[in-house]
């Protein structure tokens, strides 16, 4: 079995935790509206699982693609995106075909949770501590140092 990239693991875990939290909020909204039943729970489970799985697969593909030549990487990511979209459509179709088991709305809404999690993460300013920002700030420091050295 191939080793999973640590970046993919970390980001997927973050997205999964956020999706679970937002799923809880969604369940609460259904309860408050008086429309909660087991189909909502099952739909939510399916939708959240599909959202996290989609993110995880995307991460794996991106990690695999960054070591390829640019044109092959672009082609591969396009194919992967289409396949993942089909997977999501199949899962949602499954939820729609069994309305007595899955609530369609509760299955579809969690697909949008990863974006909300990322937006919330950025709004909360947690992204500032990521290695990218650290590298950027290091880069600026290095540039400033170089400029000072040149001036001296």
């Amino acid at each position, binding site marked *: 079995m191939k080793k999973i*990239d*640590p*970046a*993919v693991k*970390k*980001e997927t875990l973050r*997205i999964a935790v956020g999706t679970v939290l937002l799923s809880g909020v969604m369940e609460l909204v259904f309860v408050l509206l008086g429309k909660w039943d087991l189909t909502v729970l099952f739909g939510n489970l399916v939708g959240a699982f599909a959202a996290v799985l*989609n*993110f995880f697969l*995307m*991460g794996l593909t*991106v*990690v695999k*693609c*960054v*070591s*390829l*030549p*640019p*044109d092959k*990487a*672009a*082609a591969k*990511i*396009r194919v992967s*995106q*289409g396949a*993942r*979209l089909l997977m*999501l*459509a199949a899962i*949602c*179709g499954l939820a*729609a075909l069994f309305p007595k088991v899955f609530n*369609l709305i509760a299955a*579809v809404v969690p*697909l*949008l949770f*990863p*974006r909300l999690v*990322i937006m919330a993460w950025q709004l909360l300013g947690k992204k500032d501590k*990521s*290695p*990218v920002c650290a*590298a950027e700030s290091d880069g600026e420091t290095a540039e400033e140092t170089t400029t000072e050295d040149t001036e001296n």
Partner: protein
Amino acid sequence: MSQIAIAIVLGCCALGAGVAMIAGIGPGIGEGQAVAKACEAIGRQPEAKSEVTSTMIMGCAIAETTGIYALVIAILLIFVAPGSFAAIVKSF
């Protein structure tokens, strides 16, 4: 008459779902370009691979949401809207 109206509604829902899924093409192209540029960036600076990868994953997730919006609309048009529209047509 109402059967023709319902058939038109169903056809329009299916057409609308198909048109909505055109939006699924864009994210694929965008992600492809972004990853291609990331490959070039890593080629120039191999030591920045982990940072580029981490940022790429988040960027791709954001870009992909557009396609998911389209999918959601298409699914609602296929599975939810026809029933609602048919009920409205029958009520007339």
